[in-house]
């Protein structure tokens, strides 16, 4: 493989990660506020279908993306209403929505199966496109990929470098304290869940109008992405930068699977298709193992040098969720 094909491949990895980035950033915001939006897998499918359908019918890519965001926000609004106002189990509601949205996508998307529609074209940035190495890697992408870079940066900036972002951390960690500081906890949870939903809703069209243009129903291979994105959110420790790293790592592994397929002909195709899932389980295991009790005990029994090394390793990998994640807030 020469340098040029490698660069093209890696640029493709950045593009393929874009939809996952949106989904993970959206989920991160929502969970930071304390609401688990478990509907993500269905939302991505539904918005992929509807984004494509709208863009196809109106011939406007922008409207397609807006439709995706709108639907993502609406689904999130249902999650928020059910969990914040009706105080239902977020897991039950989100899960039911995940199934319902998926079925709706397959059903309503039937007329658009396999039709050729509009899609994003590459949008090289003049000047930057010709920078050696960085140009082909970063600056010959589709518009939506640039937006995904921006989303990571903005989400990170918002959470860690602004006052409202500090409040966001507060309502996810210690809602009672945030409430005393004057925050309208439940309203803010609504806002962040809906904004997060809109971001998740961007993931669908980013597939159907971008990296995997078109709508192919059950064989579009998008079923399952939402669950992967949820795992990446956990892997990312609700930190946009680390979550982005996880998304790119995942896209890279998927690409490697594709590249390796012709080489490893004796391996059944299902193995490479399924590889991301055990890998994700393994990653979840690695980021969570530091929280396990027996690990602490084992560490304590280790000799000094080894203990320091492993303790540091575990601390680097470990992530822990916002303390009030999934807990309803009632002032009393």
């Amino acid at each position: 493989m020469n340098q040029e094909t490698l660069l093209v491949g890696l640029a493709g990895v950045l593009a393929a990660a874009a939809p996952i980035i949106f989904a993970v950033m959206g989920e991160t915001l929502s969970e930071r506020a304390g609401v688990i939006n478990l509907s993500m897998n269905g939302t991505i499918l539904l918005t992929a279908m509807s984004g494509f359908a709208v863009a196809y019918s109106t011939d406007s890519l922008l409207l397609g993306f807006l439709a995706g965001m709108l639907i993502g926000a609406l689904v999130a609004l249902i999650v928020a209403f059910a969990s914040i106002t009706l105080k239902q189990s977020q897991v039950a509601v989100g899960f039911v929505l995940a199934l319902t949205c998926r079925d709706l996508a397959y059903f309503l998307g039937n007329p658009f199966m396999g039709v050729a529609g509009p899609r994003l074209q590459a949008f090289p940035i003049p000047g930057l496109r010709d920078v050696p190495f960085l140009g082909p890697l970063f600056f010959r992408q589709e518009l939506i990929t640039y937006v995904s870079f921006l989303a990571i940066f903005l989400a990170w900036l918002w959470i860690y470098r602004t006052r409202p972002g500090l409040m966001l951390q507060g309502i996810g960690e210690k809602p009672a304290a945030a409430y005393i500081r004057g925050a309208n906890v439940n309203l803010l949870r609504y806002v962040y869940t809906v904004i997060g939903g809109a971001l998740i809703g961007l993931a669908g069209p980013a597939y159907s109008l971008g990296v995997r243009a078109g709508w192919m129903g059950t064989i579009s291979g998008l079923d399952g992405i939402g669950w992967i994105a949820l795992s990446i959110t956990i892997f990312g420790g609700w930190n946009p930068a680390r979550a982005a790293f996880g998304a790119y790592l995942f896209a890279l592994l998927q690409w490697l699977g594709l590249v390796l397929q012709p080489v490893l002909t004796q391996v059944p195709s299902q193995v490479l298709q399924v590889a991301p899932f055990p890998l994700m389980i393994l990653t979840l295991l690695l980021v969570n193992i530091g929280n396990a009790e027996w690990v602490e005990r084992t560490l304590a029994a280790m000799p000094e040098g080894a203990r320091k090394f492993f303790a540091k390793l575990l601390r680097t990998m470990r992530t822990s969720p916002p303390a009030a994640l999934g807990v309803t807030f009632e002032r009393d």
Partner: protein
Amino acid sequence: MRSRLSTLFDALLPVLATLAALAVGAVMLLFLKVNPIEAYAALLNGAFGSFNSFAETLVKATPLLLVALGICISFRGDVINIGGEGQMIVGAILATWVGLTFTDYPGWLITTVALLAGFLGGAVWGGIPGILKAYFNVNEILSTVMMNAIAVQLMNFLLRGPMIDPAQADVASKIPQTARLLDIFQLPRLAPTRLHMGALIAVGLAVLVYILLWRTTLGYRIRAVGQNPHASRYAGIKVPRYMVMALLLSGAFAGLAGAIQVYGVNYRMITDGSASGFTGSAGFNGIVAALFGQLHPIWSIPASILFGALLVGANSMQRIVQVPSALITVLNGLVVVFVVSSEIWRRRRQRRRLAAAPEEEPSPKPDQTEVQKKEEAQP
């Protein structure tokens, strides 16, 4: 008097919630320009209209009930098992393999062994996320979903490769299915309908699960861990072990559901390449049925029949009044949302009532309350 009335109200709450959900569904039907009365009549008629259609409802309810029984165990242990689909698939694979490999033995023996193999396969597929949760803190919702994806690809690989029906291996279409089981291995039918022994097995197991949860130490500990893992730990219960048990048993029942689907309905394992191609989404709908049955094994029986009826009735409703089948999924979802919310509302009411009259509080084992209080006293 007042308390008896409110007990009655509590018992009727799921029914009221279902009616409310159907009312919302009626509004949606009106939007689709369909007469809701006509549509619901078609649904009822399709599900209960004749002896045959009722039998069909029970056939659909059987896997739902089996999965729901497992869900009762795991959710009571506060372990969320979303891996019913994968557990059904793995159970079915093992059971089918038994039936296709050992053809020289008596029918009753192989059928029994095969169903046990299904139970075991599901237990393994549920036990892995259980171990991951209990000893490695891996979120079981995510790991069970991923195990589903792995099971689907395993099924696709086996049914297109090593286990493919020899009759399909040579033709171009290559439908992913196994060979048909010998007649002597199939579960006997109960009537001149498609209803099979599996339905009776499921009902019998519902009683067993009830006994397991409320009359054995294992069940008591699973529920204790689910209600308060910290208190349970101080009471000397090995919490991780019972978390694993909850998920393992839950998976086992789903695995059995898969095996019974093969031995009672299809007589072979067949798919369209997706999980629901084999399971008919019973692994997911079983969760819904269990939630509807308030996570009680006995109440899960009518709940499963209700959702089986919705599935069967939906088909005829779709045929007769031409509504999209997706509407049924939405209806299903509405029913769950309404029922779950009514349940939470009921619990809050109950808590308020208890707060007013604390002496009514049902006391768990004394040593446990003791520990609980100590726990709460600590800062």
